[in-house]
Every structure is written in C-alpha cells, then in structure tokens.
C-alpha cells in the first residue's frame, strides 16, 4: 500500500514537473534559451581549443632530431640504439639513414651539386638517425641523452631555437586555453545556475505553500529537479543540434580554406561534444534546481 502511494507520488511529481513547465512557459523558454546559448558558446570554444591543441601537436610532430652516427660505430649497437629510441613514448618514428642512402638523397635533392661526390670519390656523408617526435616536449632531453653517447653518436642536430619557441607557444596556448575553458565554463555555470535560481525564486511562494500544507522536501523539490533536468536537456539538446549542424555546414568550408589546420569535423568528435553538452545541461539543470529550492524549504 505504501509502495503504491509512493509510486502515485512519483507519477504526480513527474506530471507536476511538466505541468509547471507549461504553466510557466515564458520562464521555461527563457531558461532553455539561456542554457542553449551558453552551451553553444562553450562547445564552440571547446572545438576551437581542440583545433589549436591539435595544431600544436602537428607542428611538434614535424620537428625532427637528426643524430649522426660515428662511421666506426658497431652496427649491433646502432640497432640497439634505434630500438631504444623507438620504444620511447614521446617518439613517433625513428628512421635509420645509411651512408649510401644519405649520398643518394644528396644526389636527388641537390642534383646540380652531385658531381662533387664524383670528384672526391668517397662518401663524406655519415649514417644518421632521423627522429620524429610525438611529443615535442621530449625533443631536447632526447638530444641531451644522445650527446652522452659519443662512441655511437658523432653529432646531434636540433633546431633548439625553433623547438624552444614552439614549446613556449605550445605551453602558453595550452595554459591560455585551459584558463579560458575554466573561465568560460565557470561563466556558463554561473549564468545557467542563476537562470535556474531566478526561475525558482519566481516560484518561492509555491514552495512555501507546499511546505505549509504538509509536503515533504522531496515532494516539493522533485518537480523542480525534474524540471531543471528537462530544461537542461532541451537547452543542451538545442545547443548540440546547433553544433552538429554548424560543423556539418561550416566544417568542410573551413577544411578547404585552411587545410593546414587540423579542424575536427569527424562525426565521432561532434557526437562526443554533443553528448558532453547534454550531460552538462542535465547535470547543471537538476543540481542547480536542487540547490536553488533548498533555500526556500525552511518554512
């Protein structure tokens, strides 16, 4: 019997939530619009920040380190060195270039100077390792490690100035992006939370009446929490639709205009962004309502 009463109460609470949204339609629309706009701005910024992040990674991956191998280095040790470097998590690829391959490369790329090699009759090029990094942060430490092996490595070439600048830009961009995401996230939370608080504030008397006629805290709070979750879901849903449509329309144009930028337009990324937005919307909506109602429950 108590279970039936509880089920009826839950059914009533759900019905009351939707009824109340309909009765307070203007407030509901205002809250949905605010949530939607804030989440569109936030998710667009997330996408821009992600593109910036990938751009930095891509630039980092293009930066190579070249280690010239001593002519008399034992081949077995060179092979071991190649394996050791390859196994590092921050290294994407290691290519061993033999002396002959280096000479051939010289002939191919600088054909007008190829006859110099014929004149001197010997191969002046050392064998080398060309290292492509997956994380540019590891470039300078790797160079230092290789320089500590003079038996194998004759010289290490790294564009330290370029790498240093790239790392500084990368760190700054990530720090700036992080700060902006946190700030914008906080502003988004603040605006949405206050929108919900205002919606609850306009109905504080309703809460008081319910309490005075014997409603439990959950009976009063339930409809507001459901309402907040539904408003958050609809607001976030509209924002997700806007983001998906925006990516579908603008993405290909952007890709062709700035092909050097690794702009994320794959369905997976957009879907994840939409799901994340929905989760945030529902969470803020329901939690915001929960806390907004709490202050009026002490009647």
């Amino acid at each position: 019997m108590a279970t039936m009463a509880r089920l009826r109460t839950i059914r009533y609470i759900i019905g009351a939530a939707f009824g109340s949204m309909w009765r307070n339609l203007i407030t509901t629309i205002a809250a949905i619009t605010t949530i939607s706009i804030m989440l569109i701005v936030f998710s667009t910024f997330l996408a821009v920040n992600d593109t910036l992040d990938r751009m930095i990674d891509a630039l980092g991956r293009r930066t190579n380190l070249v280690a010239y191998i001593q002519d008399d280095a034992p081949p077995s040790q060179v092979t071991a060195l190649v394996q050791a470097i390859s196994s590092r998590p921050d290294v994407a690829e290691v290519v061993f270039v033999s002396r002959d391959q280096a000479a051939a490369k010289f002939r191919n790329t600088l054909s007008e100077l190829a006859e110099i090699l014929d004149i001197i009759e010997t191969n002046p090029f050392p064998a080398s390792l060309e290292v492509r990094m997956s994380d540019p942060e590891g470039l300078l430490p790797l160079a230092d490690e290789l320089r500590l092996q003079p038996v194998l490595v004759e010289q290490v070439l790294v564009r330290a100035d370029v790498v240093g600048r790239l790392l500084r830009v990368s760190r700054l961009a990530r720090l700036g992006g992080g700060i902006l995401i946190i700030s914008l996230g906080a502003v988004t939370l603040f605006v949405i939370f206050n929108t919900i608080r205002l919606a609850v504030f306009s109905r504080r008397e309703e809460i008081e009446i319910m309490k005075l006629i014997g409603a439990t805290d959950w009976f009063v709070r339930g409809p507001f929490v459901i309402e907040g979750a539904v408003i958050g879901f609809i607001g976030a849903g509209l924002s997700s639709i806007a983001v998906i449509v925006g990516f579908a329309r603008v993405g290909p144009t952007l890709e062709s205009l700035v092909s050097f930028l690794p702009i994320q337009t794959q369905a997976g990324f957009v879907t994840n962004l939409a799901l994340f937005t929905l989760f945030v919307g529902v969470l803020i909506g329901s939690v915001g309502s929960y806390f907004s109602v709490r202050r009026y429950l002490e009647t």
Partner: protein
Amino acid sequence: MIVLQNVTKLYSKDRSALRDVTLSIAREEFVFITGPNGAGKSTLLKLLTLQERPSEGVIVVDGLDTGLVANGAVPAYRRKIGIVFQDTRLFPNRTVFENVSLPLRISGASGRKVRERTNAVLETAGLHDFASRRADELSGGELRRVAIARAIIGSPHILLADEPTDSLSPQASREIMDLLLQISRSGVTTLVATHDRDAVDLLRRRVVRLEDGRVTADVSSGEFDAVLEPA
C-alpha cells in the same frame, strides 16, 4: 485537544510575540482568538503549525508534545491539521479542483479517492460548479471557500483559520463563518483568529482575547461582549 502551557515566543530579546500564554481547547470546540493587530494571534497559529517554535513553554496538540516533533516529521504533522491562511495561499494558476486536491496528492492518495473526496469537499464548501475554474478567476469569498476546502480535505481533527473573513463583505463573511461552524459541528476542533466582531457576534462561541502577547480574557458564549473590541 490543544494545550498551551506557559508559552512564550520571543523574536528578539526586546520583542516578544507571545508571553506566558496558557490555554486549553477541548476536542471539537470552536474558539475565536481575537485581539488587535500585533496581539499575537498569527504567532499562536504559527506555533500550532510549527512554522515557529516556542521560546519557552509546552504545546500539546492531539496528545502530541510539538516540541518532540523533529523537523523531518513536520510535514506529516501538518497533514493532520487543516490550515486556512489569511492570504489563502492558493495557486492562482491552478484550478479549484487542483488546489483543493493537493493535500491528497501529497499523501499519495489514489486517483479515485482524490476524485471522490475532492468532489465531496467541493460540495460541502459550495464550490461544486467551480471545480474547473482557475483560482485567479474567483472572488475573495470564493477563494476563502477554496482555502477552507483544501484545509479540510485531509479530514483533519483540528482546523486553524487565520482571519478567514478579512476584507470580505458582511454577506461573504457570514457565509464563511457558517461554513466553519458546519465543519466544526462535524467534530473538528476549530480555532479562528479574527478581529471581525460581527463574525464573533454571529456565532457566539468561546473567545480568547490576546493583547500584547498575553491572554487578557477567555470567556465562553454569553459573556463574550466584554472581551470584544469596540465595533
């Protein structure tokens, strides 16, 4: 039965709303609480509904020491008492039926019970034709009836009414008092806080007069003229 024993309510060190009030109201009794504005009438009702807690003294309602009612148990306590608020406290954008049936919804009553009981109470309050009207479409007297109907829908043993005839025409006031008396006669202990002398004159029931937070008179019918404010 309601008993107040040496009840004092202080809002601050210098401001007391009730001072050392001792009062006993028998089961099924109809009592007027009168007195000028600020005498403590509303505070007394707030103490009985646990909107406020006494600073000193004991309040017993239906055998229950209200001081022992924990905050979590207040909703269940309030569901046993019918309350008619001075400003009605109805939901203006809901229908009369929705407003009146709300306490039953809160207690998880079945749809059938809600329909049957609400229709019966609306009939009692003379509101049967108003069931589907929104509260904000009603007159002051009709709103009071709706508030009374909502207060009695849970079949309470005690009914508290705070200025139920305030701002009503003499005719509407009489109708409201008749309705309260009719409810009282069905076995409900009824406390009506009012400064409506006509209403008190009309019903000639026990009158407790409060002044400056103290009980200055407590007289039964027949001798109540002495405790009323000048008309």
